[in-house]
């Protein structure tokens, strides 16, 4: 990749974000508010204090996992729309284990619950993976259907069988104390960062960063990762080269689901300590946007999740303290994604055009020929 192409990789999302803020500002102006004031409040909500920054990170953590899930599958050419269902099943299995294994010490229980979360998500994603590998059924329809099944089943079990005794709220009892992931407020204040004790940021952040590294490592430093990327680029060529495409598809879905399931480390082990029916409200779907914005690379997912964390955290501040509705932030997010996608395409074409000229090969058909 030449310099220009690499630069555009980085610049296009940044330009898109800047453009999205500009368009968002116009929308704010159109509804009669001062965009500078609104953005100031949005950024105060996201960066105005240590507490605010902690909330940004807390909001970014589940999006990192959900984004990794989508990006990872995408690398194998699979469109995993089932993150939502996979994270519910991960959280459900994690909660069940956390309720049942109360006698274990934290050093055992915490790793076990992390594994349970990943396993729950992996199993749920394996079903569409197997159906794709065995029967060639498209994974989009099946991952979506698996979402409905997961939401419906967890709801049913939580409300009818696992509800906390004496409670009307559709949620389970608290999982064993030994299974709670510690909050970061304590350790951080010991090293001089005064994060308030009430801030929900917890060790799941560390797991999320580790997951980013792990996803990168698997994709770019292992044989499996090579095979996944080969299948994603051209499955027929990969098969011809001797890669077992079916096996690769199933493994990619398993790992993708495991990343989605790890959302439970934040939502169950780190924050709520129980399964609340419908706790997610679309985190799995947001993961698609995060992966897209992050161009399906692990590092890109991290950055995109942070951006969404900023927007979501700032949105709450705007919603509470101004008359601008929260919907505006949705508008901003949507504009950002559209502009990134458009930007990608434009930059990619120009980069291809340059490379083509340098190598002396004809330009792509979509570009008007300049030599003519």
């Amino acid at each position, binding site marked *: 990749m030449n310099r220009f192409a*690499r630069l555009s*990789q*980085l610049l296009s999302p*940044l330009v898109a974000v800047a453009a999205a803020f500009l368009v968002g500002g116009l929308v704010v102006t159109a509804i009669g508010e001062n965009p*500078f*004031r609104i*953005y*100031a*409040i949005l*950024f*105060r909500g*996201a*960066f*105005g204090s240590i507490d605010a920054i902690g*909330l940004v990170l*807390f*909001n970014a953590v589940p999006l990192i996992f959900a984004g990794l899930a989508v990006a990872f599958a995408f690398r194998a050419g699979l469109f995993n729309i089932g993150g939502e269902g996979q994270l519910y099943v991960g959280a459900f299995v994690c909660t069940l284990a956390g309720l049942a294994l109360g006698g274990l010490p934290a050093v055992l229980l915490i790793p076990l619950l992390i594994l349970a979360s990943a396993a729950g998500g992996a199993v749920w994603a394996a079903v569409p993976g197997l159906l794709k590998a065995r029967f060639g059924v498209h994974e989009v329809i099946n991952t979506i259907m698996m979402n409905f099944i997961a*939401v*419906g089943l967890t*709801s049913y079990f939580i*409300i009818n069988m696992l*509800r*906390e*005794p*004496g*409670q*009307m*709220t*559709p949620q389970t009892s608290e999982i064993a104390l030994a299974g709670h992931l510690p909050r970061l407020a304590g350790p951080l204040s010991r090293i001089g960062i005064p994060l308030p004790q*009430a801030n*929900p940021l917890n060790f799941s952040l560390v797991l999320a960063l580790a997951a980013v590294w792990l996803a990168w490592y698997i994709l770019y430093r292992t044989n499996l990762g090579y095979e996944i990327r080969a299948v994603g680029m051209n499955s027929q060529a990969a098969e011809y080269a001797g890669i077992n495409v079916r096996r690769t598809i199933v493994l990619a879905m398993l790992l993708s689901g495991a990343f989605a399931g790890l959302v439970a480390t934040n939502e169950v082990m780190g*924050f*709520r300590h129980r399964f*609340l*029916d*419908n*706790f997610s*409200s679309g*985190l799995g779907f947001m993961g698609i946007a995060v992966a897209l914005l992050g161009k399906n*690379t692990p*590092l890109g997912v991290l*950055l995109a999740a942070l951006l969404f964390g900023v927007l*979501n955290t700032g*949105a*709450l*501040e705007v*919603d*509470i*303290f101004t008359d601008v509705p*929260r919907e505006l932030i949705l508008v901003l997010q949507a504009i950002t994604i559209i502009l990134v996608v458009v930007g990608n395409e434009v930059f990619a074409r120009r980069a291809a055009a340059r490379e083509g000229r340098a190598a002396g090969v004809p330009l792509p058909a979509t570009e008007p020929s300049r030599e003519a």
Partner: protein
Amino acid sequence: MRKPIEHLFIVLAITAAVAVMLGGCSAEQPGSVDGALRVGMVFDVGGKGDKSFNDSAYRGLLHAADQFGVEHTEFEPGQDADRETGLRKLAQAQYDIIIGVGFLFSDAMRKVAVDYPDVKFACIDFDPRPGETLPDNLAGLKFREEEGSFLVGVIAGLFSKTGRIGFIGGMDIPLIHKFEAGYIAGAKYANPAVSVTVAYAGATPQQAFADPAKGKELALLQYGRGVDVIYHAAGSTGNGVIEAAREVNRQAIGVDSNQNYMAPGNVLTSMVKRVDNAVFKTVQSAVEGNFSGGLREFGLADDGVGYAVDEYNEDLLTEEMLSVVEDARQAIVEGTISVPTE
């Protein structure tokens, strides 16, 4: 991308620069200007404009603002964790009283109320744990929805000509079961032979309480099977039930707010849950300095729930019906009828 870490630093540097620039614009810190009492309200799924549960709470807030000149702000959390965060932000911004609309705020209220003992909190439909005592600054407001539902069930049982009535709930959860159980008991009290068709709208809050198209679809199905009265407990999903009643000229029964006006002649009555009164009284007690924490229940006896009769439905209800309903009300208040909740 050969050196992603390099790019990460550039992006972070730019983000930080932008943040500092914009942060430098220093938005005004929220704070009381003229010493008026400040009320924050946080809505349930569906939010402002649901013409039902949330709007009832909002009406109470507006009434209080009108009466006592209190300042107010309100918002609807986008995700579950925002409930607690939002309550904390309001408390930090020195709101005097913060009202959470809906049982989903129960856990968040418990935590935040302890951290901010000088702020007063109230939670509509609070879900207490057995034997729980609330802090002095937290009022848990509960309603006996089953009692009001019993009375509209009596009306449905008396009105129905086909002997088939319906119930459409939002989500299949214990709170909504109270509406269902009271309604069925009331209908059977009025007409032991009546049959009740029950349906629930959805498994996610959005489908359950904010999807009028789904409500209409379910209602049309029931009307098509000979049901002639449907009671809904489904937030704005129920707006679709009322729309269906108007379309096929049958009867719907509104919920939480008085919804009789929404399709005059096709809304038999509404089970009103006076969330507005509870909100108003709570703000009033804070204004007058006699706010007290703890659990409070509102039922038929103190007009916390009831049924609505106005110019839009008085032609539908006969004298005989109303006298049967009033007898039932008396019996419930006196305790000779005990209304089931499950």
